């Protein structure tokens, strides 16, 4: 017995210590990372945290660093590639050691940006040159810059679609469903593949937001209205997904899907369509090369909805690069971000949209240019608020759960009607918004 009491003391002390440990950092709030005037004068060594483990392993990032050193010879760049980027960086950000340059993890709330990152300049000044500045703007200052932009859309196998007799992009959800039915009837391909098991592909459906109504203020409307109101973008998207699964147009057993295996299957024409984004085109083309099929079969089309006779597609940023507010070499870090965004050619290498406003459209999006698809940049002023409501309500529009439930509902593994389901989501959303008092 006496041993137990002897232990209780140290445990209590530890408990106090441990609780005192949280809540560190954020003391140097509001620092700026200013661009250096003289490239050759910049000295320092940088650690860049990145989620692109593939590019670090195959030496591509090293080549970028060597290229960077031609302009900035005094800066030593090292990369720290993290497989579970979100999870690991989130924990490291409880300390001050989270690299000099890093991608802003999605989990960080916008209002906390000034506590973690150094400012890159004012929104007014940066938005003239760059896209996506408002995604990282807090109080008029920009804290991050995405090196590439992506456009959501359906990746499809052109050969399969034309075998089914479809050559034009469908312009309404109903037409899209008819096309999938034609694919089911006339080919052996799975018309649509949900990637249910891997979860994140389902979250991509949220990127439909803005494409249906062609409204740059779509994010603000999420924050202020019911995302699942009649005719709202997310309702249209979720209804389409529901109808696809309900109509037996998706894979037979969604619970055991496999993302890596789905890529060659799409390339070979065993799968006809997947809702992803422009970033996936490169991966599918690689899969086609490996499978020995024609990479030119990989097509990309916008969400089947038109406003005033034109398709709309939303551009959105990838991970945004930022400077650690605790970094000792802020000037060097800033130089790296500027160089990587403006001059590295990273966006072109990834066939992605350049973050520079005056850059031409990438190869992947050429058909968009030809068919007059309108690219819109969403206003992200209320983006932080949407995330807060999303977490508070536990609805999770950026998380896979509710769409997995939607798919289960559609294939009868869960009881209920679509209207009730979406209505319930809307109610929870409204409740959370009201409780946040906005």
């Amino acid at each position, binding site marked *: 017995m006496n041993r137990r009491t002897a232990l209780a003391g*140290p*445990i209590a002390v*530890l*408990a106090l*210590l*441990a*609780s005192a*440990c*949280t*809540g*560190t*950092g*954020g003391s140097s709030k509001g620092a700026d990372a200013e661009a250096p005037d003289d490239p050759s004068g910049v000295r320092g060594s940088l650690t860049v945290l990145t989620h692109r483990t593939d590019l670090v392993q195959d030496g591509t990032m090293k080549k970028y660093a060597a290229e960077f050193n031609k302009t900035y010879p005094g800066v030593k760049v090292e990369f720290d590639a993290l497989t579970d980027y979100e*999870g690991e960086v*989130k924990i490291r*950000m*409880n300390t001050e050691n989270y690299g000099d340059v890093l991608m802003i*993890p999605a*989990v*960080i*709330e916008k209002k*906390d940006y000034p*506590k973690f990152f150094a400012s890159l300049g004012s929104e007014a000044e940066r938005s003239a040159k760059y896209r996506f500045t408002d995604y990282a703007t807090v109080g008029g200052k920009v804290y991050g810059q995405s090196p590439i932009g992506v456009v959501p859309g359906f990746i499809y196998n052109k050969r399969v679609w034309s075998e089914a007799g479809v050559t034009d992009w469908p312009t309404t959800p109903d037409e899209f469903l008819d096309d999938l039915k034609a694919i089911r009837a006339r080919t052996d391909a799975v018309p649509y593949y949900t990637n*249910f*098991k891997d*979860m994140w592909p389902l979250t991509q459906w949220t990127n439909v937001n803005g494409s249906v109504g062609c409204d740059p203020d779509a994010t603000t409307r999420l924050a202020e209205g019911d995302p699942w109101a009649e005719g709202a973008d997310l309702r249209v998207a979720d209804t389409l997904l529901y109808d696809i699964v309900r109509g037996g147009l998706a*894979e*037979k*057993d969604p*619970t*055991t899907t496999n993302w890596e295996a789905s890529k060659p299957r799409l390339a070979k024409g065993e799968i006809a369509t997947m809702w992803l984004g422009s970033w996936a085109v490169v991966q599918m083309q690689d899969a086609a090369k490996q499978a020995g099929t024609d990479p030119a079969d990989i097509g990309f089309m916008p969400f089947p909805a038109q406003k005033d006779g034109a398709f709309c597609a939303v551009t959105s940023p990838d991970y945004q690069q930022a400077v650690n507010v605790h970094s000792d070499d802020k000037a060097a870090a800033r130089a790296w971000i500027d160089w990587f965004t403006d001059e590295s050619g990273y966006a072109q290498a990834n066939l992605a949209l350049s973050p520079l406003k005056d850059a031409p459209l990438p190869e992947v999006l050429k058909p968009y240019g030809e068919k007059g698809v309108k690219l819109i940049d969403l206003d992200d002023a209320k983006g932080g608020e949407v995330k807060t409501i*999303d*977490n*508070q309500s*536990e609805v*999770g529009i950026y*998380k*896979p*759960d509710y769409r*997995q*439930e939607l798919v*289960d509902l559609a*294939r009868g*593994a*869960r009881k209920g009607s679509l209207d009730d389901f979406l209505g319930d989501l809307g109610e929870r959303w409204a409740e959370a918004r009201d409780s946040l008092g906005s």
Partner: protein
Amino acid sequence: MTDTTRKATRPAPPAAPAGPERAPAPRTARTRRRLTPWLFLIAPLALLLTFTYAPIANMVAYSFTDWDGVSPELNYTGTGNYTELLTRSELFEVFFVSGYYLVASVVQIVLALYFATVLSFNVRFRNFFKGVLFFPYLINGVAIGFVFLYFFQDGGTLDSVLRLLGAETDHAWLGTPFSANTSLAGVSVWRYLGLNFVLFLGAIQSVPGELYEAAEIDGASRWQQFRHIIAPGIRPVLGLSVILSVSGSLSVFEIPYIMTGGATGTETFVIQTVKLAFQFNKTGLASAAAVVLLLIVLAVTWVQRRIVPDEKVDLV
């Protein structure tokens, strides 16, 4: 327990000090003697405190805050998280899923007991079967999740085997909540059977051999041997297994998390907690949920010990 340890740690009567010097003052000798076991314990205790108790204490501390997991700011919210948790009944609905695992663990204990008994007698290829049964427990849980994902896939291993046996099935094994939970519970049985089996086997083999001989001379059948020698002999281990199974069923995580991620009605309380903490950034609420789960498991164990007290078994 305490008695034996104390005996073990007490050094043997002090050997006569070498040389003719005076013996050290009895007081210092006694303190040193009392200190020795603690010196040995420093390393394990430090590890235990750092990696077990400190995080738990930290978690309990978080459960009274609204911390989101990263923000440098956190506010003390008192018992707010616990109130929220206990007023949201839907958060406890997931315990129905534990029912599947509870049923599965009954199956698991019965099977383990059966195999342990059979293999404790002289059976051909005895050691081989022991290895086969224990092997799954050695495999990493994540690997098991992936292996069984292929197993249950449409046209996967299970379907192929059934087809070989002539049963053509088109069943999506993880497709409906009932089927998915049953399949997952089956995987859990496959994985943990080995552990129960080894515990039982060890207990059975610690029963002195003369007892069996005596029983055989008296003409006892195998069933009578089991009923009157083995069963009472392994009671403490059986009790332990039941406790482990119940607490295990309440806190299932690995297998469903990797195989379905909690989709299609397979979400358990721990998966839900992880989602609260890492998807919705409600670390405070999730910590409270973890504390509540700990209390539930403790309560269940306590009730169980009350109903089935741990008696001293004396076979001879």
